[in-house]
């Protein structure tokens, strides 16, 4: 399981591409699909690389994306996910 993931409110997205450009691990890409307003919201293309750092959320001028860390379920000593 990747360390993090993103929640995207696609209808808020205005397709500016900030999140795509400034994700340090290049997790995102603008999708070819349109939202209701005619913009291309982002989707994950490298989901496994997402750290949940929320830089994408910090850049998003429209509060449309939020990166979060996945809950580490019952971490057993010495195991890596």
């Amino acid at each position: 399981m990747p360390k993090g993931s993103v929640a995207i409110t696609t209808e808020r997205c205005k397709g500016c591409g900030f999140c795509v450009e400034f994700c340090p691990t290049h997790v995102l890409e603008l999708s070819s699909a349109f939202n209701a307003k005619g913009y291309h919201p982002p989707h994950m293309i490298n989901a496994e690389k997402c750290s949940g750092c929320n830089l994408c959320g910090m850049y998003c001028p429209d509060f449309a994306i939020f990166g979060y860390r996945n809950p580490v379920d019952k971490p057993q000593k010495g195991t890596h996910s």
Partner: protein
Amino acid sequence: MSTTELHVHNPVEDLLRQDRIPTIWCPGCGIGTTVNSFAHALLGQDIDLKKTAIVSGIGCSGRVSGYMNLDSFHTTHGRAIPFATGLKLANPELNVIVYSGDGDLTSIGGNHLLHAARRNMDLMVVCVNNMIYAMTGGQAAATTPGAANSTTTPYGAFEPELNIPQIVDAAGACFVARWTAFHVMQLERTMAKALKKKGFRFIEILSPCPTYFQRKNNMGDGLAAMVDYKKRSKIKNGCPTWETVLEPGGEIIVGEFVDREREDYLTRMRRQLGSNYTEFPPQMEEHESEGCSKEC
């Protein structure tokens, strides 16, 4: 494409008036990005949000106050600072933040900026500098770089642009910084620091206006401006503000330039007034009337 159905919650949402989102801002406008840094800075402090007010003038940047879930005041063009001054003086318990545009704060409101800095009024002022009058459709601002095109300077402006940090520093602000919308984390830290400080604190943020500044000057979209900021910025904390001039195409000096201690207006007022100042607790009878029956 669907919203991830998880119990994840962006803390920024708590600071927004949900019923006013989406914003009026254009795609790729940097104003919203600065709001993220601001919201995180506010949330990271033990600041009483009930006692926090945000005041704006008029402009695209001036719309920030109305999206924040705080006491919000959207005043007149250029006059956010004097409104905020009144708010602060009449209730010193309030944290008062002014959030507005370059035209609003430095041109039409320039005089208020100077004098609030001189007084060291306890306000935090955030100036979104998109180098243009955006809301009215791209006219020249005092911050528009000389060669740049605007609707009112079709042959370029015949006047040099304002170096805002220098002016505010010279007038006496106790904290002066500049970042760009690209510097989201640095901006959050600087805002957090400024929120904790007393006195006149000023933060300039260069921010893309793809619709009127970038496009009219063949500078691409908002993203291109952000990438350009990243390329051209040079962090120089403590840099003397006479060196922070924004040369077109040149280095963008960013960082925390001024951080000094100076007695703020209200503290000085109380000190100088001494015994001439009388605390004014509410009239006795107002206490007595508590618990009183309606008839009395």
